[in-house]
């Protein structure tokens, strides 16, 4: 149905609507907007009816709206609302058709003093991050097994950095920590953390990024809930670990990062493997490497076992064998050279042009030829067959 914009003095019968038609249409339009939203306002009138339903008005400097809080929702209130109170309300736009009036149906009401703007902001940021898909589990990237370069975004004089350095030194010396200092609490902290995170993308060869801080009051950790920090974290090109506060603290950066660590120390433990474990793995590879070769070269295992550095000894033995083999081959080659053959008493017959004479037919009676012996030539002539 479409409502005509204006009526002529004599409307056509089929263009006339009933009141119910109009209120129903307006009601549908209203209910398509402003559903489940938080509103911040001041209460101007507040009445509790005998039915248990609460009727009140919310206003700001310019406008006001009538609100209703049904009995069931009203029973869950932890405060007694009153005129003049600053509140956050969660609710939806609705329409009271019988009266042709717009109402805001409230389901939750919280005094701002109770909750603080910080919490509201937290819920808002969580909602927008979720809407943009930044909290999707599918986004999570696996962490590198052996990170060589780790960017650490935190305060340069905080306990978090000390803990991360200590744990990394103990577990995994084959790494480089690139510390990007950022103010982690107070005014300006979100901007500083976000800027530091953006800087990570400009550093070459970084394998992993840890962002976080040590424990503190709830307000001190708030920077890690900032939208700007979460978006910068999501934009970091390498896998990320967020570690904010203690075990029980969860911040939005924890939800955006690829991995959440309970504390900065735990972040470092997650980031780098234990060198002793890796050393054991390396030993395992060494054994398999030498076994792999011995299978091929048929060198006896027990022979290898006698030596400390099995792999090196095995290689040298093998090369030694090869060398002997080559020397034997070289000696054989030498023996096959013509001069060596002559030394053993053989001689080569050649004609005047140097062609080798090999068969009986090469020696007709009376033919002159040369004999090459080990120390020179001998002139000779073939005789008639006797």
């Amino acid at each position, binding site marked *: 149905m479409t409502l005509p914009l204006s009526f002529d003095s004599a409307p056509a019968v089929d263009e006339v609507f009933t009141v119910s038609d109009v209120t129903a249409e307006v009601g549908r339009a209203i209910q398509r907007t402003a559903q489940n939203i938080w509103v911040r306002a001041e209460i101007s009138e507040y009445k509790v009816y005998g039915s248990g339903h609460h009727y009140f008005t919310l206003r700001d400097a310019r406008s006001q709206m009538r609100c209703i809080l049904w009995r069931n929702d009203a029973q869950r209130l932890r405060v007694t609302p009153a005129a003049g109170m600053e509140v956050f309300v969660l609710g939806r736009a609705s329409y009271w058709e019988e009266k042709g009036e717009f109402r805001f149906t409230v389901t939750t009401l919280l005094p701002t003093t109770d909750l603080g703007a910080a919490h509201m902001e937290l819920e808002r940021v969580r909602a927008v991050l979720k809407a943009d898909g930044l909290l999707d589990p599918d986004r999570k990237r696996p962490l590198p097994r052996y*990170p060589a370069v780790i960017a650490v975004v935190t305060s340069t004089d905080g306990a978090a950095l000390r803990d991360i350095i200590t744990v990394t030194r103990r577990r995994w*010396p084959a790494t480089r*920590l*690139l*510390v*990007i200092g950022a103010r982690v609490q107070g005014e300006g902290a979100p901007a500083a953390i976000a800027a530091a995170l953006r*800087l990570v993308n*400009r550093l070459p060869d970084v394998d992993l990024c840890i962002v976080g801080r040590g424990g503190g009051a709830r307000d001190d950790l708030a920077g890690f809930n900032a939208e700007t920090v979460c978006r910068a974290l999501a934009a970091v090109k390498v896998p990320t670990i967020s570690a904010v506060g203690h075990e029980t603290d969860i911040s939005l950066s924890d939800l955006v990062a690829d991995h959440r660590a309970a504390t900065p120390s735990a972040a470092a433990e997650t980031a780098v493997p234990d060198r002793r474990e890796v050393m054991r793995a390396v030993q395992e590879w060494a054994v*398999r490497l030498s076994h792999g070769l011995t299978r091929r070269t048929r060198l006896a295992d027990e022979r290898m076992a006698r030596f400390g550095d099995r*792999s090196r000894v095995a290689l040298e033995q093998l090369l030694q064998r090869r060398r002997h083999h080559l020397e034997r081959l070289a000696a054989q080659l030498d023996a096959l050279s013509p001069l060596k053959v002559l030394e053993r008493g053989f001689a080569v017959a050649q004609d005047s042009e140097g062609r080798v004479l090999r068969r009986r037919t090469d020696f007709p009676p009376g033919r002159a030829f040369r004999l090459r012996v080990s120390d020179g030539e001998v002139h000779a002539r073939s005789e008639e067959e006797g």
Partner: protein
Amino acid sequence: MTRRKAVAEPSLADDLARLEALVRRLEQDDVELDEALALFEEGVKHLRAARERLTSAEARIQQVLEDANGDLKISDFSA
């Protein structure tokens, strides 16, 4: 800055990954002696490099600072 060098040097991760690949190849049945030798030789090289890094390396802590021109400076960090 030592950027270039850092890029060119194989990392421990490279050494371990290569070592793993070499061993797996060496353990296959169709490897000729010459190839086996070459695999082994390369494996020993990576083994040594990996051990070296694991035993002698000292974690390096550096600080990144952005100067007024927006250039990044990396220097050793003393906690």
